């Protein structure tokens, strides 16, 4: 493999790693939003 290939691999690894973690955060945020809606519904039905 050429030196430039190693450079591209290292660069790609960093951005893939960071993108992966940001994807994890986004997935968590979406899950939390759903839970919040469920808690609000529960709160609404309890009041009734």
């Amino acid at each position, binding site marked *: *493999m050429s*030196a*430039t290939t*190693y*450079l591209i*691999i*290292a*660069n790609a*690894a*960093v951005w893939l*790693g*960071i993108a992966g*973690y*940001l994807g994890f*955060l986004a997935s*968590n*945020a979406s899950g*939390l939003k759903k*839970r*919040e809606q469920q*808690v609000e519904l*529960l*709160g609404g039905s*309890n009041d009734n």
Partner: protein
Amino acid sequence: MKVKILAALAGIGILVQQYMVWAYAPIAQSGPVQKIFYMHLPCSWWALMSFLTVFVSSILYLFKRDDKYDRVAGAAAEIGVLFATLALVTGSVWARAEWGHWWVWDPKLTTSLIMWYVYAGYLVLRSTPMGRDRKALVCAVLGIVAFLDVPLVFFAAKLWGSAHPDGVARESSGMAVKMWHTVFAGLIAFGFMWGGILVARVKQMAKHAELEAKLIWDEE
């Protein structure tokens, strides 16, 4: 709002840093593979900063018993393990390209790997089922003890000698001025990214705790 501002600054910073890596910084005598340094160094630096944050937050939690410090420690540990992984990966790729082998058991690399395992273990501990307050207390203690390895990682090359550079910036390093500009651009860009991700993750953990509290209250 803070997250959006930090994200915007990180985005601009990263674009500038990437331009500097690929077009502005000169090619070193060792060839283009040296440019891995501009990704490797910010990852290493911000991994160590993350673990320092875990250390400080853990101490603050032990004194104040405020859950927000526990959340900051947890978020910082996650980001620290991420950046430490990236530092190990980029370092390994660079070593392969430069010296022909993926890994050597020299002091700097060995202490870095130990540090990675310790903080990965910290994350495993955080995910175990345990009472909330007890878990926070145990994690705070581990967060303080785990930091013992961090100065060893930073000073390993100076203390025991290593093929790895000793991590201290000096004029005799042979780096051109444009290279230093690129190094600092990377540190600043990754810093904004680190800050934005940390704030976002802490807010997420706070939201999670708030929802958990509501559910427990509703069940009672």
